[in-house]
């Protein structure tokens, strides 16, 4: 029951947060520029076109009125038209979402699968050469510019060793979407050739995104495990002679993981942010590349739509994490 109340409270915080986010994006798009209509039309557009846009989007109205209209539009799924694709920004984003999500899910899975055990081992063998090595790698992983890592991997794996495709998501057009995740779609159809191809394309962008995420997970897991290892119940269990492996793998790990879990929401958000540059390098046809192209084209609505959309996904992720944590920790039930 407490759990339900907590979920509800967190859920109720979503609309105000989203509204605040909309206000920020609105300020950036309508208040900062001297002439939003000019920005929207592009620098070289004729004056008549600018004026037409101004009337069409109500940019000649007072700001509060504009904001109300902006919010109503966004709530109705209308983020305006993309200058570049000439389509609704919202449908552009939805169309590109599966590619980014597939990539992000692969990356976070890899990051968790590698990062968790590394963090645990690093804590258990702290101050040994193993621990030092792991920590050096995580420190470097957190300091590396994602786009540089992407280029480096591309240089080695694709150009030097010819192991993976340089860029793209699939050969040709890709399978007809069922879920939009090429790997899953290929599996559903039993098309293992396509599965293999899409995995080859996934490989480098996944690694690039996974490395900083992994570094964060290692850090938090290591700190969490060390923290729990110093707790009284671990001392009690040792004093009562419970086998060390049971204490570590069952009691310490479970407690430390709850802390790591809260980080995973944050890490996932950073993955989406990292996707902008990483997708660009690998021409991965997802949200990130879309955002990059919009920047190149000064495609204003598209950039604002991307910002709002990422924010909404991020907020939703954090809500899920909060609830998951409450489910896992009996004290918050």
């Amino acid at each position, binding site marked *: 029951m407490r759990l339900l109340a907590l979920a509800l409270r967190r859920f109720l915080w979503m609309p105000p947060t989203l509204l605040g986010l909309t206000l*920020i994006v609105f300020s950036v798009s309508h208040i900062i520029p001297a002439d939003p209509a000019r920005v929207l039309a592009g620098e070289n557009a004729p004056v008549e076109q600018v004026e037409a846009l101004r009337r069409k989007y109500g940019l000649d109205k007072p700001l509060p009125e504009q904001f109300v209209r902006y919010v109503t539009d966004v709530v109705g799924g209308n983020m305006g038209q993309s200058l570049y694709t000439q389509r609704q920004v919202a449908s552009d984003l939805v169309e590109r979402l599966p590619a980014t999500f597939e990539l992000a899910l692969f990356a976070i899975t890899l990051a968790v699968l590698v990062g968790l055990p590394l963090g645990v081992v690093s804590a258990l063998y702290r101050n040994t050469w193993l621990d030092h090595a792991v920590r050096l790698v995580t420190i470097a992983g*957190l300091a*590396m510019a994602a786009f540089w890592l992407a*280029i480096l991997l591309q*240089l080695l794996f694709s150009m030097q060793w010819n192991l993976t495709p340089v860029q793209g998501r699939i050969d040709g057009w890709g399978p007809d979407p069922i879920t939009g995740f090429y790997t899953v779609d290929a599996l559903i159809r039993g098309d293992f050739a396509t599965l293999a191809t899409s995995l080859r394309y996934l490989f480098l962008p996944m690694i690039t995104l996974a490395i900083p995420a992994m570094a964060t997970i290692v850090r938090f897991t290591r700190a969490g495990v060390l923290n729990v290892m110093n707790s009284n119940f671990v001392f009690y269990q040792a004093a009562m002679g419970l086998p060390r492996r049971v204490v570590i793998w069952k009691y310490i790990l479970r407690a430390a993981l709850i802390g790591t879990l809260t980080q995973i929401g944050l890490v996932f958000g950073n993955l989406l942010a990292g996707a902008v540059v990483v997708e660009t390098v690998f021409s991965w046809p997802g949200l990130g590349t879309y955002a990059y192209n919009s920047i190149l084209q000064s495609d*204003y609505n598209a950039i604002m739509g991307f910002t709002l959309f990422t924010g909404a996904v991020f907020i939703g992720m954090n809500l899920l994490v909060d609830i998951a944590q409450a489910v896992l920790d009996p004290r918050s039930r």
Partner: protein
Amino acid sequence: MKTLRRLARDRALVTGMVIVSLLVLAAIFATPLSNFPGHVTGFDPAFRLKPPGEVFWLGTDRMGADLYSRLLFGARLTILISISATAVAVLIGVPMGLVAGYFDRWYSDLLMRVSDVFLAVPQIVLAIAIAQTLGPAIQNVILALSATYWPFWARIVYAETRSLRNEVFIEAAIAMGASPLRVMVLHVLPSIASSIIVRTTIGMGATILAAASLGFLGLGAPPPTPEWGRMIAESREFLPQAWWYATAPGIAILLVVMGFNLLGDGLRDAIDPRIRRGS
């Protein structure tokens, strides 16, 4: 003295300190240190894309400019951007956190909610939106970064001020009739200075990374400014032949960000012995 000696024993901290000092020195002495100080932004078709060698230590770029010299001047830019962006973020975030934490009025909640909203989007995404609106220029990068990073300081200052509110020495100062401003500046601020310093050190690393990303996306200083992120973006056309072109600025970013992170971690461990490693 004892604290100093302990700090010196901390390898991570010392490494961080050395890297950061080197960066600062490189930025200050970019002109005497570089091989071709006058030619950082020049165009010299004869020397295009030369691999590293005796004349061009780190090779040349597509304009025929010496990469080593460009890196040095890029350090100047990096320092300028990260210091000013962080400074502005500190100047917004710290007073905001102080006020929200010290007073317990309706606006305390509001201020913190606002910072929550800013934290609800990944920083770099918001910075991209702002930088794009403002157009590619150094001061716009600084503005975009400070406008998105200030909530980190607001958060930490708020939390620490809140927990200090009930400390005896704060209450005593209030009882003695000190004005709120006086209490905040003379009593609260010194007590939380160490947290702010740690956060700022790590924040420097984060803003350098973000600024490089903006540069890479073409939202930073316009060419031919020797900005590290932009240099990497430019290099992509010439891969895999000109491998050195991307390598040098990438390593520079890696080292500098690592330096700030190590320094921040080390300072935190030194300041807060409870979380000292290995104990």
